[in-house]
């Protein structure tokens, strides 16, 4: 019976209708937790350690009782409810200095459910299209050499509208055995695309997109992309933090260099440890889709906080049955808001930043390394 809850959740017509899906979500979530507890002994141990009795979780208010696993746990332990060989995608999070990476698995079932989720969400955001587009991917060219979730998702995204051409910013270089950034080819491609009738879509790391556009701006390039062109960004917000690019400045830059309006810039918020994609609304707010619930927790006590309070972001989702991502505690601080000019009633998430002081300064030997490890 509870298994049907996830199906119902995925079948629900409005991907932002929380009220209408709270119960299904709760049921799907406890079923997901139970599934992992059955197949993954260490997950079961943790439920026990925190005295979490799944049967007492009845309403959406109760889901906070499921002990969240911190992302650092996934980085330091491998934890799966399915054998490795059954996984079709083994996603690893990138960008940690210490080299520690989260290992997240997905099976066909998860992929299929994920597709249903994306179908609904993209439909809502009018991203599906039959018109052929030129893709500019600020990410890695697909290759057998590397296994990065960003690469997979960026490439998968090029099927949302049929591709005329795909140009990658990071291309595999056999000589060096690594990726090389090739922004020149991107630039030339963009200049050419502006003269054609096919819309373009850019995809990928905001930092690279920004660097290229900034360089083009300095060269005095101002293009007008074909109607229907989109700039999509996502997959790695850390770069954005450290470059401290003001979002509005970025939107203005896109408008000036590519002639694409702010409303046609779409950001996707996501995390390797959370199996739900979150496109922003036209006001660039990250509304939580029904496949996910967000709890903001007290930075000192980890107790759930009310709306508008700053705390650690805790994602909950029943979408992955391979790795226990049921309730995941991120390293990010955020605020959950209600009400948005775009009309969506689903709460929206404001990201404040990463825990830990940025550019922390210390001379205690080894501490830098340690701090990096925990980020």
């Amino acid at each position, binding site marked *: 019976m509870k298994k049907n809850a996830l199906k119902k959740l995925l079948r629900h017509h409005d991907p932002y209708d929380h009220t209408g899906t709270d119960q299904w979500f709760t049921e799907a979530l406890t079923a997901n937790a139970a599934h992992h507890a059955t197949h993954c002994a260490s997950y079961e*141990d*943790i439920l026990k*350690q925190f005295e979490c009795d799944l049967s007492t979780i009845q309403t959406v208010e109760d889901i906070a009782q499921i*002990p969240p*696993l*911190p992302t*650092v*746990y996934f980085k330091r332990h491998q934890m799966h409810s399915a054998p490795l060989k059954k996984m079709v995608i083994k996603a690893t999070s990138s960008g940690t200095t210490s080299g520690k990476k989260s290992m997240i698995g997905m099976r066909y079932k998860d992929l299929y459910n994920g597709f249903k989720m994306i179908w609904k969400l993209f439909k809502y955001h009018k991203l599906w299209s039959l018109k052929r587009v030129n893709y500019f991917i600020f990410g890695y060219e697909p290759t057998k050499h590397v296994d990065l979730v960003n690469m997979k998702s960026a490439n998968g995204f090029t099927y949302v509208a049929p591709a005329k051409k795909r140009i990658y910013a990071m291309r595999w270089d056999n000589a060096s055995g690594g990726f090389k950034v090739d922004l020149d080819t991107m630039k030339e491609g963009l200049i050419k695309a502006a003269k054609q009738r096919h819309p373009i879509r850019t995809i990928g790391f905001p930092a690279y997109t920004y660097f290229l556009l900034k360089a083009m701006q300095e060269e005095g390039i101002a293009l007008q992309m074909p109607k229907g062109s989109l700039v999509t960004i996502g997959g790695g917000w850390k770069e954005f933090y450290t470059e401290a690019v003001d979002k509005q400045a970025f939107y203005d830059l896109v408008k000036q260099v590519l002639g694409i309006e702010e409303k046609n810039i779409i950001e996707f918020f996501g995390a390797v440890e959370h199996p739900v994609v979150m496109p922003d609304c036209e006001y660039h707010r990250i509304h939580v889709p029904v496949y996910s619930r967000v709890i903001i927790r007290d*930075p*000192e*006590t*980890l107790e759930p906080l009310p709306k508008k309070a*700053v*705390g*650690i972001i805790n994602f909950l989702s029943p979408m992955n049955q391979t790795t226990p991502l049921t309730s995941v*505690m991120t*390293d990010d*601080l955020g605020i959950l808001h209600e009400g948005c000019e775009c009309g969506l009633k689903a709460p929206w998430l404001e990201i404040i*930043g*990463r*825990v*830990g*002081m*940025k*550019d*922390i*300064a*210390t*001379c*205690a*030997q*080894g*501490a*830098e*390394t*340690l*701090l990096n490890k*925990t980020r």
Partner: protein
Amino acid sequence: MILYQGIIEENSQLKTRLASLKDDCYETLNHAHPLETDWVIQACNQLTQKIIAKQFDHIIQPLLTQYDIPEAHFKHYLKMFSQEALEQKVAFELNPQSMKTTTDETHERKLYPLGILFHIAAGNIDVLPAYSVIEGLLAGNINILKLPTGDQGVSVTLLNALIQIEPRLKPYIYVFDVPSTDQETLLQFSKIADAIVVWGGDDAVKAARVMATANTKIIDWGHKLSFAYASLDASDTDLKALAQNIFSTNQLLCSSAQGIYVDTRDYAELDRFAERFFNIMKGMHADYQPVPLGIRSQHTLELYYEQIIQKDTQKTIFKHREFSVVACRDQRLEPSLLFRNVWVKTLPKEAIINTLKPHKNHLQTASILASKDSYHSYQELLIKAGVVRIKAPNEMSYTHTNESHDGMLPLRLYTRIVDCVVPRNDLNHKK
């Protein structure tokens, strides 16, 4: 920012300046009046007066706030740059009298600067890069300084202020803001320099060693670890004094206590000790400015993680909103989570050397919290293990007059002894 012979410039001038740097340094060696220690001392003294007179509050005050440094500590540090303190430092470290040979008039021995120093500064405290250059100047050297990443301009401001006071320092100070990744430029600096003075972590030290040619000296002031050593009967007074060090430095300094080693083998006793220290911290924390929310959140997460894996580690965790004490079951010397998160570990007296000696040059300060009868034997063992400073618990991060730096005298390392024969003509004897 670039500071080049008294001129402040944009980083875009790097290439031009790099091209002339070697020749300009050599020109100084060739024709400039050799740098006199007294110029530097007088300039520092005057700068100190100006700082006391609040002329530099626009840069000093934000620093004090950022690092939560009490005004009193700052005043203490400032005194290190007074004429009296610097004269004492030079007299103690260089001790020119000691160079005199009484036994033989046919030879002279004198200290000379190495010549050109290339300082690779670390980013932990913003005045340190300037301090390193001042030490280089006191020893008479030309100084090339690579600013740490994220430098906020304090060093350039201070060094430029020195030049304003004493323009003869101009050809002895060069500051560049080059990223650590620009190995090619760093290699050029190191080729010009007689010695690289490297501050920073193991990676920075190692990188300098790999980069430099064999005929470039490497003088490293690497990151260090400090800790407290306590017997079970440590007094409350001492524990409070230690907590004071931990609260006031946030464990960010090389000399800050990262944790406490306790002279016991008994985990139950260790846990009781940890709880006792936890309670002492609880009684004091209100006196200190709280650490930023981001940091607190990070600790909450880290300790929550520790809680999840507690079955495996068997650590006992005492957590407060603002700080924590964790009693561990291992003896590894390691940095704490910083910002008032203290580890407590067993370390019976007999195991001190075998446990700590492998860390050798990483060891710096220890405070000993023990009664009089055991104090000295602890001290001897800790010194043998490699500790170079034994301090009172609340003074671990307090620098005393004429203290060595990590066991060495910087000015000595920045100079060389030159032995000269007194030529026959001058001596008027000998065949």
